[in-house]
């Protein structure tokens, strides 16, 4: 392996740990998180039209706090009415 181009291992250790710790702390597997996202989108779609491809839902950490953060762009309602 080329010494000058190889990716330094500390960065990948940190990235991998960040992900693992989020799931360890919430006791939620990545598959369960996907299922949660699907259910959440279904529930929201009953009331408002959303853009499913632009939705971002994930767990974030802040110190020892965990947060479920969702960014759900809505489709414009007025434009549909005008048409």
């Amino acid at each position, binding site marked *: 392996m080329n010494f000058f181009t190889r990716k330094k291992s500390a960065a990948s250790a940190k990235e991998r740990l960040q992900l693992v710790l989020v799931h360890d*702390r919430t006791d939620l597997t990545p598959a369960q998180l996907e299922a949660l996202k699907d259910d959440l989108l279904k529930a929201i779609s009953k009331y408002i039209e959303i853009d499913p491809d632009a939705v971002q839902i994930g767990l974030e950490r802040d110190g020892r706090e965990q947060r479920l953060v969702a960014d759900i762009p809505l489709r414009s309602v007025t434009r549909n009415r005008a048409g």
Partner: protein
Amino acid sequence: MTAQVITVTSGKGGVGKTTAVANLATALAMDGKRVVCIDGDIGLRNLDVVMGLENRIVYDIVDVIEGRCKLKQAMIRDKKYPEMYLIPAAQTRDKNAVSPSDMVRICNDLKSDSDFVIIDSPAGIERGFRNAIAAADRVLVVTNPEVSAVRDADRVVGILEAEEKGNPSLILNRLNPTLVKNNDMLSAEDVLDLLGIQLIGIVPEDENVIIGSNKGAPVVTDAKSRAGQAFRNIAKRLQGQDVPFMDLDSQSGLWSAIQKLTGRK
């Protein structure tokens, strides 16, 4: 005078809990404190050999709990520091011979005649760990800058939070400054960011630690050892003193001399 009960734990085994206990206890004794160490690893006792007291054991903690001896009889006085004692673990029993309330009772009995009670927790998050944290006023979590150790430390911190054991402090053990500089080891900042707890000390990797264990003389007694210095600093912080963190970059020695010569830093 009432002692502070400090439990040293880690989740993962082999990260340096027992070494940390032996060194912190010895450093506190060197500062004139009265210290009692308790080996909480029933069935796998080791604190006695690391402290060089293995030949003096007559009674152990299970003998105290089951009434075969008085607490004082199970307290082994250190060879060098007469104000430091060890209560050894039983070697032929298992964790179920001790309960959390036994630990609380023993620690309460020790509190009036000592300044610090330091409990060496077994690895894992089961009965032995629960026993070890039951009486703790303060918990120190030991980890290494390595993925499995950090992950297990996070589990332990989560359990301590759930048990409302107060905020634990982190000892980052066996940090290799050269690897960190080359971005091939998690830095102290990385580990603190991941775990989200306060730092009480960084102990650099140091072959003198093994030499100390071999001799049954903890490395804090070696004035030149950098790991010894790090443990002495942590002991001061446990006493409430504000000691600056060591500069781990200013390494002396052959390897760093070679690095300087070749310009590889």
